[in-house]
């Protein structure tokens, strides 16, 4: 492993670098996976919505990173570098295995209900819990309708809480383009919320 990756001081601090990588802590692929595995898996799961594919590509991400660790120059954080590898795998997967991908989705797809079981504050009232589940399902379904770039940028910003500069580095886009995709994604989500709120309001009358 390069000294840049081993030296935590060389890595810029980002939201994804919460588990501080100390010198030598990235000396093995197991350590790298322990630090960033869950985040990479989460990003892949939200992007692909398939447990099996997300797990496979998570392993592939770390294997590729480990085999190419000598090429890591330390220009970005290890998390940004890993996420970029993961995003490339997502793009390869959806591009080359599009039809197989969709068949796979039908068997092991992650549905909104799967996420709803993990909503915080489960002890709240039934009504507020139902509203939260509806809103979660709305966001989950709307994100699926976004373009690949809009979805990626949205997930990196609002799930991974990355800085715009890191998102730009991961997606290989200018920051202005990242902002545009993010703005459009939020506008679509806002529109769906308003439409749903209107329909609920009409039903309640």
């Amino acid at each position: 492993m390069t000294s840049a990756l081993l030296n935590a001081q060389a890595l810029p601090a980002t939201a994804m670098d919460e588990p501080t990588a100390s010198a030598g802590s990235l000396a093995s692929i197991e350590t790298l996976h322990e630090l960033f595995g869950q985040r990479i898996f989460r990003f892949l799961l939200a992007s692909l919505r398939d447990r099996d594919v997300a797990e496979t590509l998570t392993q592939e991400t770390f294997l590729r990173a480990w085999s190419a660790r000598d090429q890591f120059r330390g220009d970005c954080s290890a998390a940004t570098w890993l996420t970029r590898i993961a995003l490339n795998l997502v793009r390869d997967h959806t591009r080359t295995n599009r039809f197989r991908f969709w068949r796979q989705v039908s068997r092991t797809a992650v549905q909104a209900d799967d996420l709803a079981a993990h909503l915080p504050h489960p002890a709240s009232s039934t009504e507020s819990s139902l509203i939260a589940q509806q809103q979660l399902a709305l966001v989950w379904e709307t994100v699926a309708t976004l373009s690949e770039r809009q979805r990626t940028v949205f997930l990196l910003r609002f799930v991974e809480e990355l800085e715009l500069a890191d998102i730009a580095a991961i997606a290989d886009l200018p920051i202005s383009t990242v902002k545009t995709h993010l703005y459009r994604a939020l506008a679509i989500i806002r529109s769906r919320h308003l439409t749903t709120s209107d329909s609920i309001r009409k039903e309640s009358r």
Partner: protein
Amino acid sequence: MNRLPHLTQFADRHLSDAQMFGLLDAPDDSDASTRLHLAGCPSCQSEFSTLRVSLTNFRAAATRFASAEVPALASSRVAAHSRLSRFRRHAWATSLATVAVLAVAVPLVRPTHKTPALQQLPGNSPGVTNPAAESDDALLDGIQRDIATSIPPSLEPLAVPAASSATDIHN
């Protein structure tokens, strides 16, 4: 867009997508006019609150779900894959080295004498008689004898043309 009517100065002008985006993406960086509008507009407050809660819940649920779903043995699997990859690389290197050694060594140990298999081929040993060769010689001798005969027995009547033609005429 159906909004609740209210008697404020913001009744007919709500937050644009860009303003809402600014509030959701970076609330601290939003401009004063946006915050002022939000403070006085219940409709936008409600919408902003709903969107913010939705996005917060989305992140929380995705995080918890991923935490629950991430395979416990994934780390060891990655390590096993890594070891397997190293083993495969070593195996490839070993195979290539073996092939290279054989490519060099085989021409050096090429045999300079006839192999036993070649020695045992029929006809290669002078002291051993070959039954097939004997039958071939006998056949050739028979043919030679037939050629050497002046008139074959089957053509003997043609040797007396006068007698033969006379017989035909009389018949």
